[in-house]
């Protein structure tokens, strides 16, 4: 990793606070320059990772380790978040639909809400919190203790070993975690309904999925692969460009979570529109 000064969205606040006090114009110029520079650096980083990922040697062992780290170890948290979402959705939907005399649509409302939006976005945000912070802090700690330099000095490409494997693991695991989150959400949605009035799981599924087809299920699930790309890319980028000891590690972990969550939400806005247009 060639050392570059930390700039952009996560540059140290005191450096920007001074010009802000001196002049809002200077502050705005710094902020715009910093943001553009951050996106430029992110683009260069992404290109380096892509180039490293498609050329041998491939780091399969590290990839499998990351699949376990990012996938299996996030599963309990995603399942719990999905279950909680299912309960809340079920309670809220019951209240609203009963008021408007549409109680019979309750299973469909829960199913559509979970598989279309709440399942994917909740999974994305939960993973960006757990995995984003983990990757950001781990790589930042390796950076400030020169371990990434040591990898490079050992003639191993850190973009391939550290970044490509983590990003690919995020891309592959997010859709699978979303399936798990969806399943838990639907299950708990049914349990919540069944506690209020008798309703078998069979009835709930039949009624909920009666109007649904593959387009309702597949695109929203697969869009989380894009969330995975965003989470992995931003966390690796923030981690591997860290400077400044323990404080830098803290900043990297925080900014990884904040930025990846923000970009997941922004990407969701765009992806929802695309899905509506191409998979009506």
């Amino acid at each position, binding site marked *: *990793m*060639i*050392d570059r000064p930390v700039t952009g969205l996560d540059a140290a606040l005191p450096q920007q606070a001074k010009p802000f006090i001196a002049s809002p114009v200077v502050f705005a110029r710094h902020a715009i320059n910093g943001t553009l520079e951050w996106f430029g650096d992110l683009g260069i980083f992404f290109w*380096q990772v892509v180039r*490293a990922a498609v*050329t041998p*040697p491939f780091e399969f062992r590290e990839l499998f380790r990351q699949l376990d780290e990012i996938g299996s170890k996030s599963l309990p948290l995603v399942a719990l978040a999905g279950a909680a979402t299912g309960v809340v959705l079920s309670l809220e939907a019951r209240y609203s639909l009963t008021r408007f005399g549409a109680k019979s649509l309750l299973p469909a409302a829960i199913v559509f809400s979970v598989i279309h939006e709440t399942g994917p976005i909740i999974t994305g945000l939960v993973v960006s919190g757990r995995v984003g912070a983990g990757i950001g802090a781990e790589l930042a*700690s*390796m950076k400030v*203790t*020169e*371990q990434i*330099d*040591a*990898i*490079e*000095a*050992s*003639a*191993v*490409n850190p*973009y391939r070993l550290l970044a490509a494997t983590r990003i690919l693991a995020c891309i592959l695991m997010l859709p699978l975690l979303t399936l798990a989150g969806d399943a838990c959400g639907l299950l708990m949605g049914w349990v919540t309904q069944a506690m209020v009035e008798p309703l078998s799981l069979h009835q709930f599924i039949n009624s909920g999925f009666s109007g649904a087809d593959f387009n309702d299920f597949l695109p929203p699930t697969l869009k989380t692969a894009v969330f995975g790309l965003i989470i992995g890319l931003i966390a690796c980028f923030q981690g591997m460009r860290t400077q400044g000891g323990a404080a830098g590690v803290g900043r990297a972990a925080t900014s990884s979570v904040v930025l990846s969550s923000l970009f997941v939400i922004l990407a969701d806005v765009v992806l929802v529109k695309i899905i509506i247009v191409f998979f009506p």
Partner: protein
Amino acid sequence: MAATDQIDVSPVMKRQESGGKTGVPAVAVEDLRQSFGSQKVLNGITLTVSRGETLAVLGRSGTGKSVLLRIIIGLQIPDSGSVRIHGQDIAGFTLDQMGEIRKKMGFLFQHAALYDSLTVEQNVAFPLQHHRKMSKAEQSDRVRALLAEVGMEGHLDKMPADISGGMQKRVGLARALALEPDILLLDEPTAGLDPISSAEIDDLVLKLQDEHHMASIVVTHDLHSAKTIADRLALLDKGNVVIAGTFEDLQKSDIEFVREFLKHS
């Protein structure tokens, strides 16, 4: 010897011509310049090191000694100047091209930079796993041999956090030697160590030099250590090589900074 950026390197070149197989130095840096903001760290450094030779780079803290090593191994890109490894200019090399060059180089970091999630054994095995096709048994034998070479054979399963700074440097040295490099770069190998551990590291470096005949560059501010392990010394000040030569050359020098440095070392 004269002070300066145009330091006389002819004695070194003569030695290479007589001693080296091809006459091409293992490491040659020419007119290297590096600034950080307004601070000039390297201001036209020119140095060469040939196979079997150890050069100690001395100087006060912040004079760019470690930056010089990082530039030589390609971890930092200089503002200008060239670095040639076995005659190959590394400017513009991609990460993978640089990787091929780095397979011939070993680097001991100032704080060892061991991978903190791996054991001592896994740390030393790391370069072998990535660059040598060998069975698990062969790899294990090689790692044990390397750790025995640095006196760490009894600590295979320990984590880096569980061993002392001196031991970490030994493990770092074993890792640097794993691919049998012909260029060894040591960044402050004795910094932060007690005198006995420092002497042990010095002896170890000397032993390795005798056995492997590598071209070595040792960055240090420890004059005693430099005198013990190096064939030649280069003293840096304000980004320039003030003097390069044997320890006796330094002692004979009437340059004010050299006399001051020797007096306080």
